[in-house]
C-alpha cells in the first residue's frame, strides 16, 4: 500500500506541478492545467492576505504566542524535568493542533462562502480561471496559513523545551556549587557531561552518570557519589530523569512490535480435533466456531498465568559499535483483576503491580542476571537493553515469567502495542519534523472539508457543520462505546438485530468518512517515538491525497454546477 500509494501520489503530484507551472499545455480529464500554478498561487496569495488582514490568522497567532510561553512557565508534569518537558510538549503541540483545527475550519468555511455572498467571486469567475483552480487556490491558501502558524508553534515549543532544559542545567550548576562544593568550572564541566552519558540508565552507584562525572572531575566514583548525595533530593531524582529524558523523549525512535503468530494451522487442528471428538456446537456456524477458537488461542498466547513464562524474539536493526547503542523494551501489562498490596515471605507486594522476572538472550544461557521487578499494571513501561544484550543481527530475545504469588494472569495486548522494541533512528529534531508533518495531514483533510462546505453553504452554517463533524470524528471511540458497538459489547453474529447492525454500520461509516488522521503525533513526540516516513507516506496518501482530494472534488463539482449569481426568489 505504501509503495504503490506513495508512488501513485508522487506521480500525480509531479504531473500536475509540471504542467501547472510549465509553459506547455496539459490537462487531466478535461481539466486544464496550463497556467494553473500561477492562478492558484494568485488566489492563494489573496486568500492569505485577506486572512491576515482580516485578523483571523493574526488572532490565532497571538493565541499561540501567548499560550505556549504560558505552558512553558506553568507546566510541571510529575515534578521532574522529564515530566515537565513531556507535559510542555504535549500541551503546547496539542493546543496548537486544536487551535489550528479550529482556524482551519473557520478559514476554510469562509474562504468561498464569503466571496460568493459578497459577490467578490464575480471578479474571479469572469476571468479565465477554471473553478477547480479557485477551489485549489483557496485550499492552498488555508494550508499555507496553517503551515506558517504550525511553524510558529513549533519554534516556540522547540525553544521552550530548550529553555526548560537550560533552566534545569542552570539550577544544577547552582546546586553543584552550593551543595556539592564544586567550583563553577567543575559544575559547568559536570553539566556539559550530562549530554554525553552513554549506556543504560541504572540507579545508585551503577549509574553511568557516576562513572562519567568521575572521569570528568578527576574524582573517584565514591567521591562523586558522596557529592551527589549532598544535592537536594529533587535534584538527584532529576539527574536520573534528565538522563531518561535524553534517551526516551528527546530522541526519534522507531518501533518494532512483538509478532503475533499465525494461528491458522492451530485453528484447523483444534477444529478437526473437536470435530473428531464430536464436540462441535451444533447450533454454531463454522465461522463462529473458528473465530471463537482464534480468540481463545490469541488470548492464551497473550496471557501468562502464574508460574508460566513466554519468550519473544524481536528483530531490530544491527547495533552500531561504540555509539552507546541502547534499545528499549516498551510494554503494558494488563491484569484481569486488581493486585492488592500484601506480604509474601517477607516481601512487600505492592498494589497495582505484578512481580515479574525478565531475562535477556537465550533463556537457557541468559547473558545477564535475570531481573526481578514489580511492574505497574495498565501503564506503559520501558526497560533499556544494552548493546551487548542485542544479537549481532539486531535480534533481541526477551523472556518474561509471571512469578507473582497472588496468582494473577499477566496479559500483553500483543495485537496492538502491548510489547514493542524501540530503537534510536535519529535526533529529536527528526521526530519533531515528522510530527509536524503528521499534524498537517488532518489539517489538510479538514481544510478540504471546509472549502468543500464553503462552495454551497454560508459561512456560519458551513462552520457549524464542519465543526460538528470534527467533534464527532475526534470522539468516535466515545460514540462507538455509547452506542455499544465496540468489540466488548458485540453480540455473536447470530444474535445481532437490525437495530444493532444499523448502529454499527452508522458508526463505521461515520468513522470511515470523518476520520482525518491516525498517527497521533503529539503522543509519539511526547514518548520520543518517530512517526516514521512510511507511516507519514501512508497517512498522506490515505487522508490528504485520497480523502482530501475526493472531498475537494465534490466541492469543485458543486461549484461548477452552481450559478454564482443565482437569486432564490
Amino acid at each position, binding site marked *: 500500500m505504501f509503495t504503490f500509494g506513495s508512488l501513485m501520489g508522487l506521480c500525480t503530484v509531479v504531473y500536475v506541478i509540471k504542467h501547472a507551472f510549465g509553459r506547455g499545455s496539459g490537462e487531466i480529464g478535461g481539466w*486544464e492545467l496550463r*497556467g494553473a500554478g*500561477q*492562478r492558484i*498561487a*494568485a*488566489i492563494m*496569495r*489573496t486568500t492569505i*492576505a*485577506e486572512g491576515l*488582514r*482580516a485578523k483571523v490568522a493574526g488572532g490565532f497567532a497571538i493565541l499561540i504566542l501567548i499560550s505556549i510561553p504560558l505552558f512553558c512557565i506553568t507546566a510541571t508534569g510529575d515534578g521532574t524535568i522529564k515530566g515537565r518537558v513531556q507535559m510542555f510538549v504535549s500541551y503546547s503541540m496539542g493546543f496548537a493542533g486544536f487551535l489550528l483545527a479550529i482556524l482551519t475550519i473557520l478559514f476554510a468555511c469562509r474562504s468561498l462562502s464569503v466571496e460568493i455572498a*459578497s*459577490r*467578490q*467571486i*464575480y*471578479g*474571479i*469567475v*469572469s*476571468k*479565465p*480561471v*477554471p473553478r477547480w483552480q479557485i477551489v485549489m487556490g483557496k485550499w492552498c491558501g488555508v494550508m499555507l496559513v496553517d503551515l506558517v502558524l504550525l511553524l510558529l508553534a513549533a519554534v516556540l515549543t522547540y525553544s521552550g523545551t530548550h529553555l526548560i532544559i537550560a533552566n534545569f542545567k542552570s539550577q544544577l550548576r547552582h546546586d553543584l556549587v552550593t551543595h556539592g562544593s564544586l567550583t563553577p568550572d567543575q559544575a559547568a564541566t559536570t553539566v556539559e557531561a550530562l549530554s554525553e552519558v552513554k549506556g543504560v540508565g541504572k540507579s545508585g552507584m551503577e549509574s553511568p552518570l557516576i562513572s562519567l562525572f568521575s572521569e570528568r572531575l578527576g574524582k573517584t566514583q565514591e567521591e562523586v557519589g558522596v557529592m551527589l548525595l549532598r544535592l537536594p533530593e529533587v535534584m538527584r531524582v532529576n539527574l536520573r530523569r534528565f538522563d531518561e529524558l535524553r534517551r526516551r523523549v528527546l530522541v526519534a525512535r522507531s518501533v518494532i512490535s512483538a509478532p503475533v503468530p499465525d494461528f491458522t494451522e492451530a485453528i484447523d487442528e483444534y477444529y478437526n480435533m473437536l470435530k473428531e471428538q464430536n464436540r462441535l456446537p451444533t447450533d454454531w456456524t463454522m465461522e463462529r466456531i473458528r473465530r471463537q477458537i482464534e480468540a481463545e488461542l490469541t488470548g492464551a498466547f497473550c496471557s501468562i498465568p502464574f508460574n508460566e513464562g513466554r519468550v519473544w524474539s524481536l528483530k531490530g536493526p544491527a547495533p552500531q559499535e561504540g555509539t552507546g547503542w541502547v534499545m528499549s523494551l516498551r510494554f503494558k501489562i494488563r491484569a484481569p483483576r486488581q493486585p492488592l498490596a500484601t506480604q509474601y515471605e517477607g516481601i512487600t507486594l505492592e498494589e497495582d503491580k505484578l512481580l515479574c522476572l525478565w531475562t535477556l538472550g537465550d533463556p537457557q544461557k541468559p547473558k545477564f542476571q535475570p531481573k526481578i521487578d514489580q511492574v505497574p499494571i495498565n501503564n506503559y513501561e520501558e526497560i533499556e537493553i544494552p548493546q551487548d544484550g542485542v544479537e549481532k543481527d539486531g535480534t533481541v530475545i526477551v523472556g518474561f515469567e509471571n512469578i507473582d504469588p497472588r496468582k494473577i494472569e499477566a496479559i500483553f495486548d500483543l495485537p496492538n502495542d502491548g510489547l514493542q522494541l524501540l530503537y534510536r533512528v535519529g535526533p529529536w529534531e527528526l521526530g519533531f519534523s515528522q510530527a509536524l508533518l503528521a499534524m498537517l495531514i488532518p489539517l489538510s483533510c479538514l481544510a478540504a472539508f471546509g472549502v468543500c462546505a464553503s462552495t454551497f453553504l454560508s459561512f456560519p452554517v458551513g462552520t457549524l457543520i464542519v465543526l460538528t463533524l470534527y467533534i464527532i470524528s475526534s470522539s468516535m471511540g466515545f460514540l462507538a462505546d455509547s452506542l455499544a458497538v465496540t468489540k466488548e459489547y458485540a453480540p455473536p453474529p447470530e444474535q445481532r438485530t437490525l437495530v444493532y447492525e444499523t448502529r454499527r454500520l452508522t458508526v463505521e461509516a461515520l468513522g470511515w468518512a470523518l476520520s482525518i488522521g491516525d498517527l497521533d503525533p503529539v503522543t509519539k513526540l511526547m514518548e520520543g517515538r518517530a512517526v516514521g516516513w512510511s507511516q507519514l507516506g501512508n497517512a498522506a496518501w490515505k487522508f490528504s491525497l485520497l480523502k482530501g482530494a475526493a472531498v475537494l472534488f465534490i466541492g469543485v463539482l458543486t461549484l461548477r454546477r452552481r*450559478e*454564482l*449569481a*443565482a*437569486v*432564490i*426568489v
Partner: protein
Amino acid sequence: MMDRVANLQPVVECIGLVKVFQDFWGRDKVLAVDNLEMQIFPGEIFGLLGPNGSGKSTTIKMILGLLYPTSGVARVFGRPPTDTAVKSRIGFMPEESYLYRYLNAYETLDYYGRLFRLDRVERRKRTEQLIDMVGLKRAGRRPVGTYSKGMARRIGLAQALVNDPDLLILDEPTTGLDPVGTRQIKDVIEILGQRGKTVVLCSHLLADVEDVCDRVAIMYGGKMQATGSVDDLLQRRDITEISAGQLDEATVQKVRQVIEQSGSKVIGVHHPTDRLEALFLRIVSQAQRDKLQTSGAESSRGVSQFLGGTGRQPDTLVESLVEAGRRHEEPATTQPSAPAPVPEVRTEVLKKLGAQQEASKKPTGPVESPIPKREPDKAVLDRLLQAGREANPPDGSSDKK
C-alpha cells in the same frame, strides 16, 4: 454599422435565451429573460437599455457564465461563456465594485493580472498605467475598503481593462461616478471602439448610452422591445435643427422667411447653452492646473497607453480643442485623447439650409440634445418677440415698409 458587420461572426449571440428564477423548492417564480434573440458584432458599441428588473443584468450574467440559461443558447466568440479561452478575452465591470476590501489598488490589479497570466513586467506596467488613468495614484496604497463608491468604481473599471479585452462588458458603469469618471468611461469606450473592440454597455442612464453607443437594444419584462442604431431610433424626421455662427437679427429674419416660404414653421430660435458636464470638466481641469490637493480620486490622466491611449490628458482648454480637432481630421490614425469640453459649431449644416428633407448627419463631436429637449433661451425669445413687434407693430407700420 449594420452593413459593415452583417457578414461578421457575432461576438455575442443569444438564441432563444430564457432564464427563470426559482424559489427554494425549485418552483418557477420569475421569468427574468424571455426568449431573447440578440447579436453583438465585432467593433460595435452596444447599449443594453431597460428599466430596473427588465433582464439586462441577468442577460449579462448569462453571457459571462455567472448564470446558466434555463433554455436557449448564449455564445461568446462562438463558444460557450464558461470556456476559459473566451473569458481571457473579456473584461467585465460589474454593477458594483466587488473588491477585496483589504487589498490596495496596486495589489488588486496585480491579482487580476495574475489571473490572466500576465508576466511581472507587464503586470507592473499595466497596473501603473491603469491606476494613473483612473486617477487613483495618490490613493493607490490605501485598502480599497476605505474607498468611496466612486473610487471603487474607478478601480472596478481598471480591473476590467487589465487584460486589454476584446469584449468589454460594463454593467451600469457610471453609477456612483463623478462627471470626470463618467467622461473617462465614455473615453475608454470610444477608444476601444476605435481600436475595433466590442463594448457592451448595460445601463438605464440613457444619456450615457446615447453618447457613445452605435446600436442599442431596449429590454422590458425580459423581452427585447426594440433594437437598432442610435441614429435610427432617435432621429426625429418631423423636425430639422440648424446650427450656425453668430447671426444678426436681420439674417435670422431672412432665414425665418425662407423657412416659412417653404411651408414649414420655425419652432424656436435660440443660442445653445453649454452642457453642465463640459462646465464641470472645465472647472476640474482648472483646479488641476492650479495643483489643488485632493485625497480622493484625481481627474483623468487620459487613457492607458496599452489600451491605445496617449497616456496624458491635455492640460488646457485650447489643447483640448486642438486634440478634438485632430480627432476629426484623422479619425483612423490619431491617438485618442480626452474629450473637448466645448460643443463644436457644426457649420456644415448651414450649407444644407433649404434642403430640409435631407437626412441629417450624426454629430461627430460631443452630442447636443435635440431642440425640443432644451429649455428655451428666454433672452432669445424676448429678442425675437421684440423683433416681431417691430416688424408687425400694432399700428400697422409694417405695411409702410
